[in-house]
């Protein structure tokens, strides 16, 4: 049904496939790892991220769960307490909230509460973001709820290469990791190197395009938007940084860039007000106040619930809105 051949260095595959490959490696490497969620087994996930894994590792290690997100995360916490390393799938961004209590009051606190006695190497995978013409609750960007919660590491991948290495790093991480996957990019293809040795650490930001006039900060789906904007801008040289890790934030990489360019725009799909970009803007201001020509500009979703799909192109930050913000860094 599915191929199980390990890709060699530099194999090209989709982001969904790269996650699949990473999860397969994690399951093969460590018998404590298991995958759990709605429709992750027989179906292989609605985005096919777990395709073929149940057939290979069995339905106890790739588990179709009852339909309840609090249950998925709550039982995963218990399994972790017993020494397993669960990778939970939340089917869509908008459906993480039944698990919100488990994630924020239980999972995030247990290490502190037990003074480090409880280990919670849990990964919660969440497809996020819009742009796929989907129904209500299928296009949201809830990352700020989690970046605001101490005790959680929060990351977002944007390329097949990162998807593969970051999911493996997340599974290996001793802390709980909320792992955001840009659903708009699941079928984007790119090279994947299965050798983890050369990969940057999970909590490092990466300069994905060098430039000298302004810095664009992005993660997940907006990395592509920013690269497109930088490409389209013929007059200015724009640096693009893929933050990758939202909590912790790689302030050093960001600050070094902004100190050089003197302009900064942070771009995400989530609403701007109270969004993750506000934290980034504040930190950049603290570190680069003297270098900045103007305040850090933020581009993102509006003060409104994610709209019906025929309006999403207005809601989502696009190339033009990014360049409009770049204009306002002078």
């Amino acid at each position, binding site marked *: 049904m599915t191929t199980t051949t390990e890709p060699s260095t530099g194999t090209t595959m989709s982001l969904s496939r790269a996650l699949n490959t990473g999860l397969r490696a994690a399951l093969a490497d460590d018998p404590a790892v298991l995958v759990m969620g709605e429709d992750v087994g027989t179906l292989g996930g609605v985005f096919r991220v777990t395709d073929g894994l149940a057939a290979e590792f069995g339905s106890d290690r790739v588990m179709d769960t009852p339909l309840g997100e609090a249950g998925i995360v709550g039982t995963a916490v218990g399994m972790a307490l017993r020494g397993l390393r669960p990778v939970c799938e939340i089917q869509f961004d908008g459906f993480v909230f039944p698990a919100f209590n488990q994630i924020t009051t239980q999972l995030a606190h247990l290490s502190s509460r037990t003074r480090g006695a409880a280990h919670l190497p849990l990964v919660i995978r969440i497809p996020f973001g819009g742009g796929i013409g*989907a129904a209500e609750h299928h296009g949201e960007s809830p990352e700020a709820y989690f970046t605001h919660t101490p005790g959680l590491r929060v990351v977002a991948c944007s390329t097949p290469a990162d998807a593969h290495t970051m999911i493996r790093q997340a599974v290996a991480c001793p802390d709980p990791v909320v792992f955001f996957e840009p659903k708009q990019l699941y079928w984007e293809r790119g090279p994947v190197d299965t050798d983890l040795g050369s990969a940057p650490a999970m909590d490092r930001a990466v300069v994905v395009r060098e430039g000298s006039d302004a810095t664009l900060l992005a993660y997940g789906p907006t990395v592509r938007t920013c690269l497109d904007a930088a490409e389209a801008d013929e007059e200015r040289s724009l640096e693009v940084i893929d933050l990758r890790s939202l909590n912790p934030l790689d302030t050093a990489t960001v600050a070094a860039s902004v100190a050089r360019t003197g302009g900064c725009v942070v771009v995400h799909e989530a609403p701007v007000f109270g969004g993750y970009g506000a934290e980034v803007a504040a930190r950049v201001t603290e570190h680069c106040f003297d270098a900045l020509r103007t305040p850090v500009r933020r581009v993102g979703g509006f003060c409104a619930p994610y*709209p019906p799909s025929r309006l999403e192109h207005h809601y989502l930050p696009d190339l033009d809105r990014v360049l409009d913000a770049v204009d306002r860094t002078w």
Partner: protein
Amino acid sequence: MSGAEGQPLRLLDAEGVYRDHPDLRADFDEAQIRGLYRDMAMVRRLDTECLALARQGELAVWTPLSGQEAAQVGSARSLLPGDMAFPTYRDHGVAWCRGVPPAALLAHFRGVAHSGWDPREYRLHPYSVVVGGHALHAVGYAMGAAAQGTADAAIAYLGDGAMSQGEVNEAFVWAAARRAPVVFVCQNNQWAISEPVERQSAVPLAERARGFGFPGVRVDGNDVLACRAVVRDALARARSGHGPTLVEAVTYRMGPHTSSDDPRRYRTAEEERVWLRRDPLARLRTHLSRTDTDPEKFLASVDEDCDALARELRHACRTLPDPRPGEIWEHVYAQTHPLVAEERGWYADYLDSFEETP
């Protein structure tokens, strides 16, 4: 009323043969039976058309109900005008019975609005996309209706998968503790996307009700007469202050989960064939052909109505106006909100700036 376990309550068997049941009050006259058949045929046609529209890209997605017409029509036709229904994304038959115009129904699936109707006008809440998110609302609504001294009831529609959600179980606790005038209709269509109902429950779903402290009834969800009789009685019970009932309508989702799902990945063609023989529509048609005074004429008129509906749907779909960008900010708050006003104004100017450039 009995029947939380074992054979579901039934009046019409799979061959369309009618048998009285001691627990069911079935006094439907010809006009009522015709009405139920017509409703089911119309929503079946609505479903087929909308799935086709989704496949043609006219709708962003569609959630087919085929196979579940009896459960939806039988239950929703038992509601009184003052009752309130809380549906899932698959309950187009309920929307039909509440009188929601087809174009309004399509708005959600074409992506022009999150919900296309005024819930107060049709006494139908917006479709619940977050599985189980609406169950507590039905309970609270029912508590409100009781507090106001009315005899209105609420009905909450749930799938078999939804029965696993914590909030749904809280809804059962609350409904029981407050004796709320609410009926929970669980359409056990055997599947929650790719997961069979056995993944959700070790016992028949209706049995759970007893533990919460109210009756659970298993009814043949492909028998519209039994569904009608059972839900009518459950609503009457709720109205008279005796509290909630859980009705498990045992049925089958004959089509895909949504227009983007492929059921061959998780279930067998043999299983689908078995359930095809239990088609709720065919069953009532057989019964009707044997008992109606002029079945041919009646069925022909239904066919005509279905064709007209199909034409209306296609037209309505293609002529649904696209929303204006400004609608993003409409109704986010009831009162003016400075950030909403600021963003809305900014975005209008921003769009204008493109038009000025030649």
